[in-house]
């Protein structure tokens, strides 16, 4: 099946970050592989062998959050930008409040949840790992 998923990079904090997302969204990882599971890992620095090569957490309705650790030894110089948001269309105010509180804990609220001119209960935050989220509950739904 055709699929589109957000794929995040973290500087060695994928395991911690993905467990944080699991605590917010619930569910179980469908993939959680370390670089030590990959061919040729013996040549990698020890510390990087334990890092996460691929982790996947289903968010519901076929959407999966995926992530990997960026490797310094591979010259992967990570720059955390602010041009990208994961937008969650939620199904109730209660769910929106719960997810927003969970995701923004220890992070930064950019726009508190409020009733917007486009008819939604919406908010924006940057979580403690630098990932940006928008939550949007369509009040007409």
């Amino acid at each position: 099946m055709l699929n589109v998923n957000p794929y995040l990079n973290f500087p060695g904090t994928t395991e911690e970050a993905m467990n944080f997302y699991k605590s917010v969204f619930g569910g179980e990882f469908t993939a959680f592989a370390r670089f030590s599971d990959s061919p040729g890992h013996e040549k990698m620095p020890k510390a990087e062998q334990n890092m996460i090569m691929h982790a996947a957490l289903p968010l519901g309705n076929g959407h999966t959050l995926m992530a990997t650790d960026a490797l310094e030894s591979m010259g992967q110089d990570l720059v955390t930008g602010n041009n990208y948001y994961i937008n969650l269309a939620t199904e109730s105010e209660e769910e929106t409040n719960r997810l927003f509180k969970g995701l923004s804990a220890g992070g930064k609220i950019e726009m508190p949840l409020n009733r917007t001119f486009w008819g939604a209960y919406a908010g924006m935050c940057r979580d403690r790992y630098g990932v940006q989220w928008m939550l949007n509950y369509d009040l007409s739904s």
Partner: protein
Amino acid sequence: MARVSTYLNFARETEEAFKFYQTVFGGELTGIMRFGEMPAAPGMPPIADADKNLLVHISLEILGGHVLMGTDAPSSMGFQLNFGNNSHINLEPDTRAEADRMFAALSAGGAVSMPLADMFWGAYFGSCTDKYGVQWMVNTMGK
């Protein structure tokens, strides 16, 4: 229905970028709203004439029902946009032919980070940054 979509920010190129994505994925550009059409908010400075045509919102369904959305974030309104390399949009087309087509189109004028090739996890995979700075991964298990 609950769903997860991708929301991109560009300085002033959202419309151009989305027209480019439309050439890659097809579909219709929907939900278009310009800054000049926004209701005036109390306490907010008026929108400069040069910014009125910029986009507050646009959306395009790309693959498998996933919706790509975007907005302009111009420095004239105080936005400080940093293009990071920590997020990719991962496309999983059904066939290698589709993967080849999409990858060629998305990387045109941009930069290929990893050319499409067979990977040890069994997929035909590649990654690139498009000419607007958005990072894509193409991964297919299909023939």
